């Protein structure tokens, strides 16, 4: 299958980048073709512009060639992997912006004017995998809710095929994790992605 790994961390030597590399290795070992988008490294613009918001309501919502390129790469993927640090219980702004700017009508979903219904646009996506690190321990994440996970495994999942499965790989309590905990997590990311 075709897999797309989307990484969102400002530091290129981050733990998230290490996790993304292991996901890449795991997917490759499983025989998938793997494509990677590193949002910070590519200088992806985070915020939807006014022109893009206006175009959103037209038949040509994509204005930026980089967004068009990302949309095309997403549209040929059956597996999508998101790798990011959870900040304020959610997605880093740049990753939230990627959803907003790439998952426009015609890509993420289609809007039927007559019935007023929204139809999934990512029917080709069969697997959504989240890989995230959390400063807080699991219990604290549970109390405030994991909104990044909700966006990807519920809101985005609803735009995928009806049988799309989700997998969540989390390292909680990152601030107090030992080198052994980190190494074990990276090994788990590779093992789990190799099993997809």
């Amino acid at each position, binding site marked *: 299958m075709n897999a797309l790994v989307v990484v969102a961390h400002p530091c290129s030597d*981050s733990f998230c980048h290490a996790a993304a590399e292991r996901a890449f290795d795991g997917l490759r070992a499983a025989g998938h073709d793997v494509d990677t988008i590193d949002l910070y490294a590519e200088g992806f613009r*985070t915020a939807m512009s006014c022109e*893009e918001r206006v175009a959103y309501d037209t038949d040509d919502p994509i204005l930026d060639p980089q967004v068009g390129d990302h949309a095309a790469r997403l549209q040929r993927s059956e597996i999508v992997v998101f790798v990011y640090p959870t900040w304020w219980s959610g997605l880093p702004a740049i990753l939230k912006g990627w959803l907003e700017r790439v998952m426009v009508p015609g890509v993420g979903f289609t809007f039927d004017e007559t019935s007023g219904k929204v139809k999934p646009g990512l029917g080709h996506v069969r697997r959504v995998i989240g890989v995230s690190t959390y400063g807080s321990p699991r219990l604290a994440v549970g109390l405030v809710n994991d909104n990044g996970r909700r966006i990807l495994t519920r809101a985005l999942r609803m735009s995928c095929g009806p049988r799309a499965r989700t997998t969540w790989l989390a390292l909680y309590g990152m601030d107090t994790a030992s080198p052994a905990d980190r190494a074990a997590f990276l090994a788990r990311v590779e093992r789990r992605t190799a099993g997809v």
Partner: protein
Amino acid sequence: MRALAVYCHPNPVSLVAAARDRAIEGLEAAGHEVRLTDLYAEGFEPAMSATERLDHKEPGVTPDLRRHADDLAWAEALVLIYPTWWSGQPAMLKGWIDRVWVAGVAWEMQDGDRTPTPRLRNIRRIVVVTTHGSSKLMNMLEGESGKRTATRSIRAMCSRRTRTTWCALYGIDTTDAARRAAFLDRVEKTLARL
């Protein structure tokens, strides 16, 4: 009360922009002191930089964000005005939280602390004014992550007794002019009663 309104919409001509105007009218009519932040108008950069990330345990914002941190320390009420996209705050507003609500501004941790101590106990009210393309039901199925971010995650750094108010219009893709007008009236009334 001292109210900080943080407004986020790329298009100056939108229902959310109208809601901002009515929110401010409501606040001013009730005699509150208002400061307005318009993230798009000021060209706010929402993506946290590598330097900020590396220094994230050091207290304080980067120098160009000082005013935002001062506004938060000044406010007694926080009013967030934005469209809900992908069930949450737009990236621009999420970036404001990521970059401004940092150590030394929103929270602090001393050596040995296991949990952060809130620093924004001056904020006693959080009001969210937002529009949703889809229905209330669809938002519940999607997990209402924007609501949870406002009423749980950022509220946790405010006063323990901070009250939250949710003022939302659902299904705007299919709504009529009368419901939009009623929503704007509700926004003004809600903020006038703050």
